[in-house]
């Protein structure tokens, strides 16, 4: 039987591991030279035959089906194979790249392209985990990108993008309600209003439990509206003034908690769970980052046809989501080709269709030719989608350190029961 004497003694293992880690530590970071997007025909040549592992949050079937389509088009046109790696959380992939770097794997990494923004981008940029120098603004389709009127394309959560990630779509915080249950006249027009509304409709509002992305976004929206001086949010958190700046936010949450769904003793997992809860009749006001979310859900029978959208006249948070290439990606040329294809008017128009995904474009209509503009004009945004002119002002995202800090504070105050 299993004889302990023939087992592997732990000691050599320890020493070997320490040795390995020590070697890796000394090896340090090394940036492999990659393809140059300025020489596009060369990129296309070396991309042919590559397999691109695209790590993307895989919680939405719409998005998965869209990526599937992009992959088949890319294979047909450029001979690049796309494999979507569906993530339950984007940090899984970031953690994997971090582990690869820790193990000294500076080439042939497991991620070629990653769907990313905000906190994760800031962290990857700070750790030098991104393919550099900046490549995004050298892509052929960059010429259509609307970076002039959409400042979030060059500044991701206050962090300069520097071409280290390529814009994919726009996001704007939008609220949804069911007009069969809720009279549009009673809808809240600000975070303060929302608190009053929740008091009158106890148990019918909630937000996803931070650090879920949408839950943290709700906290940031309230923070932006209530902070005495919102401009400090554009700079990193200052521990000395944090308490003062965040005080109105936590006073607000304290007041809101008793009127939340389940009295704030449990929170929905994410915005998709809130969508289900709205369909179940448990929640009356929900929110998402995609203005076409409700129209798409109605189309697919997930929400009743009477659901409509609204935003706050004073503005709601807006940002851009991107794709980035890790510094150790194995198929950088293929990843560049995919990033460029995702920017093409054809792919962007398809993405904006609520029947497909409904994600707003990053392109400027004025920069497109008549044929491409017609693609966008032909899209039916759906009954529940507000027109771009009705979306209200865009509030800029705070510096990523705020998100981290209020998430930590939230957990301390509400995250451990009592």
């Amino acid at each position, binding site marked *: 039987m299993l004889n302990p004497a023939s087992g592997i003694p732990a000691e050599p293992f320890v020493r070997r591991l320490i040795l390995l880690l020590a070697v890796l530590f000394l090896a340090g970071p090394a940036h492999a030279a990659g393809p140059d997007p300025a020489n596009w025909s060369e990129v296309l040549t070396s991309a042919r035959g590559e397999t691109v592992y695209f790590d993307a949050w895989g919680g939405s079937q719409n998005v998965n089906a869209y990526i599937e389509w992009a992959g088949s088009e890319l294979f047909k046109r450029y001979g690049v194979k796309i494999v979507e790696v569906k993530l339950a959380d984007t940090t899984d992939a970031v953690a994997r790249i971090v582990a690869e770097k820790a193990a000294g794997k500076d080439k042939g990494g497991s991620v070629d392209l990653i769907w990313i923004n905000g906190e994760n981008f800031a962290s990857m940029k700070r750790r030098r985990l991104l393919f550099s120098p900046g490549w995004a603004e050298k892509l052929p389709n960059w010429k259509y990108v609307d970076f002039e009127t959409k400042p979030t394309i060059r500044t991701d959560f206050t962090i300069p993008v520097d071409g280290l990630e390529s814009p994919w779509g726009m996001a704007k915080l939008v609220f949804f309600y069911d007009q069969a249950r809720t009279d549009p006249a009673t809808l809240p027009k600000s975070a303060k209003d929302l608190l009053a509304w929740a008091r009158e409709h106890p148990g019918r509002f909630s937000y996803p439990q931070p650090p879920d992305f949408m839950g943290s976004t709700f906290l940031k929206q309230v923070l932006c509206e209530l902070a005495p001086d919102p401009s400090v949010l554009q700079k990193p958190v200052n521990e000395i003034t944090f308490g003062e700046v965040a005080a109105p936010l936590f006073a607000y949450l304290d007041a809101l908690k008793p009127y939340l769904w389940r009295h704030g003793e449990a*929170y929905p997992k994410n915005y998709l769970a809130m969508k289900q809860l709205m369909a179940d009749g448990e929640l009356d006001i929900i929110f998402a980052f995609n203005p076409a979310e409700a129209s798409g859900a109605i189309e697919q029978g997930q929400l009743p046809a009477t659901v409509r959208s609204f935003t706050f006249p004073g503005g709601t948070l807006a940002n851009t989501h991107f794709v980035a290439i890790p510094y150790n990606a194995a198929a950088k040329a293929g990843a560049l080709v995919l990033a460029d294809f995702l920017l093409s008017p054809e792919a962007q128009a398809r993405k904006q269709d609520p029947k497909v995904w409904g994600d707003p474009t990053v392109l400027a209509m004025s920069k497109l030719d008549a044929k491409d503009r017609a693609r966008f004009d032909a899209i039916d945004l759906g009954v529940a989608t507000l027109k771009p002119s009705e979306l209200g002002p865009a509030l800029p995202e705070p510096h990523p350190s705020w998100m981290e800090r209020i998430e930590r504070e939230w957990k301390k105050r509400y995250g451990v029961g009592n």
Partner: protein
Amino acid sequence: MIARLGPPLAVLLLAGPVLCGLVGTVLPAFGYLPALGGTRFTLAPMRDLLAEPGLIRSALTSLAVALVTAAAVLMVVVLFVAGWSGTRIFGRILHLVSPLLSVPHAAAAFGLAFLIAPSGMIARLLSPWLTGWQRPPDLLIVNDPLALSMTAGLIVKEIPFLLLITLAALPQVKLAETRALAASLGYGRIAGFLFGVWPRLYRQIRLAVFAVIAFSSSVVDVAQILGPTLPPPLAVRIVGWANDPDLARHFLAAAGALLQLGVTALALIVWLFFEGLAGVVTRRLGQSGRRWRGDAVLRRSGLAAMVATAAAVGAGLALLSIWSVAGLWQFPETLPHSFTASAWIRTIPQIARPLGITLACGLLSTLLAIAVTLLCLTRELQTGRPAGRWALTLLYLPLIVPEAAFLFGLQIFFLAARAEPGLPNLVLAHFVFVMPYVFLALSGPWRAFDRRHEAIAAGLGKSRRTILFSIRLPMLLGPILTAAAVGFAVSVGQYLATVMIGAGRLPTITTEAVALAAGGNRRVIGVYALLQMLLPAVGFAVAIIVPALLFRRRRAMRAG
């Protein structure tokens, strides 16, 4: 003799990865990980861990869930087997319950959630005619702070596991004879079983009970779906820390993993204490001479609990399958407003690759586990020495060490060894989890095999090899196939190992399902839950049907 290779091979393949992983976990728990700048041993990670808000509560939740789950599962299985084995109802219920073993934990949990939630099926069936609810009530049932839903979810999933392990051991304890003897002495069914059969039977399923405790104390997926969230059980928090892009949190995760190890160990120690207590009580009761004939209520409640288990999981899955084709389905409608195949149409094209990887990895790791297990057991037969305590500890290490922790260490190790993420790594990682279950399922029946069969064969001049291949292995075909089916189901259900070691590049049905579950779309969850169930179900069907066919003319070979 090739069997000689068995034990060292098992130690290498099993303890190797776990030890590498543990080293990768324990050292950082005390601040030592040069690659991340930790070059000195320090207690800082432990201090950080203790400073985490709600830590004690998370740990206590894990502990309580584990003990309550194990106690409830064991009680139901004992009452049911004691009260009903050998009856016709027993066989019928068995056919109902055994397929449930193959149901992935996540799928069962989702099904249960939709059954018991305020907007769930039970509330829908009673509304509005009885309850007056036009809209779901604002009640905290799923994710409750006491983890009752989570415990219920674990109980209904672990009952089939323990029942099957018990059944595999049952033919070795002379149930019918003992039962006849106890009955002739005037004992009630349950008392006769408890005094006559149980002590021997429990010895054989004891490690399975420990596995239930260890699993329940460190489960992640069920906890995420049904468990409390403010704060979540310990294992869920460890995974959160381990996935944090902030590398400094890995020290915290490692410290948390050490605590998890302690919590699991404490749960086992508490269990051992109650085990001893229960033994004393049983002996006292036996010595009292009372016959306990009036056990009809107990017997019926055992049956009722078993039926309720099957019904809860079955109904949950039936509901999920309806969801997979549902259009709009609002409260309090008991059936969807409309039906659509769109969830299936969107899913099917994406399934070929994950399906292939699931099958390949499951079959390879199971085959490897069966082969190594048989080699070890054969070697044990040849030397006549049963496994030592240390060997057993090594063997069951993967069931007790929180997987998230040692997997992270193992991931670092594979990367450091420049081993590309690929099927071999994944098979090896799955093997670590498959092997103990296979060994657990097989070693009991193997050791309890009546050696007089072999003695007779030897007396007739047969060689050791012939005895092994024509007497022992064929007679143990049932347990071997059951063990293989358990192993395959374990492999199919692996989530963390697949994601971490496969570097996300080797998707299986389960990783796809969990990734999609993040979206909470019941239609898609329904599709994947059905697909996920199908694979292990085939394995168990084989384990049940093949021996039944082969031994249909041999009455003594039929179990139960």
